[in-house]
């Protein structure tokens, strides 16, 4: 991985950064503070592969800025972008969900800044700190559920112009 840990970031700034994100804003000050202890700021240039499909997911991250594409390889079509992750959302939720393997390629399409949490450390903390787990897991599940719902809508291909019925259309 080409992750470059930033020089020691001010902890207050990390808490503030967490609070400004969709993922972090709802967690409450206690959980935000606990997470800040585990976080490191990661800056990556455009083109960086953050995750490889099928490989172990080392980190759960909150995207602070930039854009990250989730891509899958389709034979003869190459890498297809399924979805992009926008600031405030999670990258690498599989770090918390067994078997901890990435479900898609994950590539920064713009220079990106992330708050990263080592999966192993985070899992260990959540096993013992049930209050933290009770606020973090629902939010993770919500992020995954939104992604599922969004993917279903894409699947509907609502803007497709192929005829949906066999009736003759006079217009």
């Amino acid at each position, binding site marked *: 991985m080409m992750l470059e840990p930033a020089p020691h970031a001010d902890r207050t700034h990390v808490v503030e950064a967490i609070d*400004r*994100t*969709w*993922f972090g*804003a709802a967690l409450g000050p206690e959980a935000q503070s606990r997470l800040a202890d585990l976080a490191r700021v990661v800056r990556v240039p455009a083109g960086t592969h953050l995750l490889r499909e099928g490989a172990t997911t080392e980190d759960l991250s909150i995207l602070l800025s930039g*854009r990250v*594409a989730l891509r899958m390889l389709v034979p003869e079509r190459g890498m*297809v*972008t*399924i*979805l*992009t992750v*926008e*600031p*405030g*959302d999670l990258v690498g939720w599989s770090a918390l969900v067994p078997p901890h393997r990435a479900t898609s390629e994950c590539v920064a*399409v*713009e220079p990106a800044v992330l708050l990263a949490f080592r999966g192993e450390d985070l899992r260990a903390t959540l096993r013992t700190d049930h209050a933290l787990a009770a606020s973090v897991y629902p939010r993770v599940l919500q992020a995954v559920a*939104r992604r599922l*719902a*969004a993917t279903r*809508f*894409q699947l*509907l*291909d*609502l*803007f*497709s*112009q192929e005829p949906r019925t066999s009736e003759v*259309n*006079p*217009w």
Partner: protein
Amino acid sequence: MVSGLGASPTQVLDASAQVVDDAAAYTKSGPWFLLRANLQVLIDELRADGRRVIGPTVEDGAIVYDDITSMADLPEGWGDVQEAGQYRLARRRDRHLFSFNMGPASWKRFTFPPVIPLSVGRREGREVTFEPAVIDPPRLAFLGVRGCELAALGIQDRVFLGGPFADEDYRARRAAAFVVAVNCTTAAPTCFCTSMGTGPEIRGGHDLVLTELDEGFVVRAGSEAGSDLLARLPVKAADAGQIFRAASAVGKVAATIGDPLPTAGLHDRLLAQFDSPRWAEIAERCLMCANCSMVCPTCFCSSVTQRSDLDGHVSTSERVWDFCFTASFARVAGGNFRNRPRDRYRQWLTHKFATWIDQFGTFGCVGCGRCIAWCPVGIDVRQELMSIAPPLEARPDQVDVRPAAASPAEYTTARIDAVRAETADVSTLVLGGVDAAFVTGRPGQFAMVALPAYPPLPISISRYRQDRIELTIRAAGPATAMVIGLGAGAELGLRGPLGSGWPLERAVGRDVVIVTGGIGLAPLRPLIDAIRDQRDRFGAVRLYYGARTPADMLYRSELERWTAGDDIEIALTVDRADEAWTGPVGVVTHLFDHATWDGSRAVAFVCGPERMMQATAVSLEERGVSRDRTFVTLERHMECGIGLCGHCQMGRLFVCKDGPVFSLAELGEVFGREGI
């Protein structure tokens, strides 16, 4: 506003529909004509009925309402000159009895007197008793009640009698009053009943209504009691000339007043301006004298005061008029909630023109203009409202445009000046030589487009230009493909503009969220044009646009210009990305699912496939954009475009005529439901 209210306040609330029917029945055999001299008979009959007759009379240099025993008490030949801060009596050339405008007095003095006893309290030793005052109002007859004043009585009916607790003193006084109304045949520059929808013509709530002509009065009954009285008067059937002269005199007054205070969207416009610097500026001029509130026929606030004997054993409790302008009005033991004059003025104005609607379902103003004339420093509420919460200038969506060629049998023609390809199968036609009706159309309206031998096509208007319009059309079948393929110079048949527009008024002073997908950007483009024309009238403006692929996006160069202009925040997404696309990929809601803006004061405009609009509505609601502030435009089969052919019905709605723009609250359960 209060049309259809019957004469008796109990009827008003219990069976208003019935009252309307009855009123229609009473007028069946009218109108009648009463000779001028015989007005005395009317006064005598009312008095013989055991009533005190209250009517206009000259006192202390003004026309006020007081006891009338004969016609000689009426202000014969008197008129007045009024302006902001001005009131003077003036002699008229005719001998009319009711050709004056509103004086300082209103009928509320008799239905809601300035002081009434409530109870007598006694303390003897350790015991206390409270004895309520006996309610026994005099039988009155009001002679000369105008349209705005009847509306004011209707408003006070709602205030005092419409809730779970009624004011019994008011109920008794109101029920004991017989109402002889008079249609206005004159107006002062301070009048604005036409804007408030209360006059100059009487719209119900009367027992009798008169219209004054030189030789007498055209008379109609409005209730059973009125009908009974009419039967005792020396009237004859009014002739056609008298009916015509009476109607045209009233019509002329309406035309003279015009519409000095456009009220469309006023509620929201005003409530969006709580923090306007104008409040402090008005407070610099306002003396907090409460004159406006005292002369107002709807102001209803009061206080309870105690008058006790010297040893404090017996005290009379009285209800007295009070006003939100007085310094003590919002005071509590710990301080004053409206300490500053600006707060008190804002309370008064926002109550009259906005929050009153939330409380009682009507404006708290009837447009009588008394507060303007009797303000010692000449503050004119109309001017203040227009400067604090002005209506939109360009294409005001409250103006109803008469479409060109409304009937499906008619078409105007227009010439295709240019065709611009937007995507592989979508093109924009620029049409010249269009009927003037199109130039005054509203964002969100549509046109019916026709070519001989093809079915008519309902197409949203995608831009209004000075003398041209644009239509953006997708080749969805033979007719649309044919129209797109015609090329410059060819002619088309056009009807419209039809349907409702986007209610941009609702968004003034608020943040705007526009969410759209695919060709759905077309009906929203004139809305974006209108917003950009008056950008400073709105808060943050965000446009979220999704398309199937980057190549399916409409108006790409314009999207770039709008973004560069920095006045609209734009986010684009696609369902399927190509190699070159580095923007977001995902459905359109994905663009703001993780955003942190607060939508609790935003208005949303949404257009796209219905399934997409549903998902959008859910995401917007999560962000705080309520269903009454979320507007969608619907697609349905439209043949006639004017609500006659029945194709586009959706539950109780005709999409072409009632829509195609609706709030989600209006649509209710039918939105997104299968098979409706």
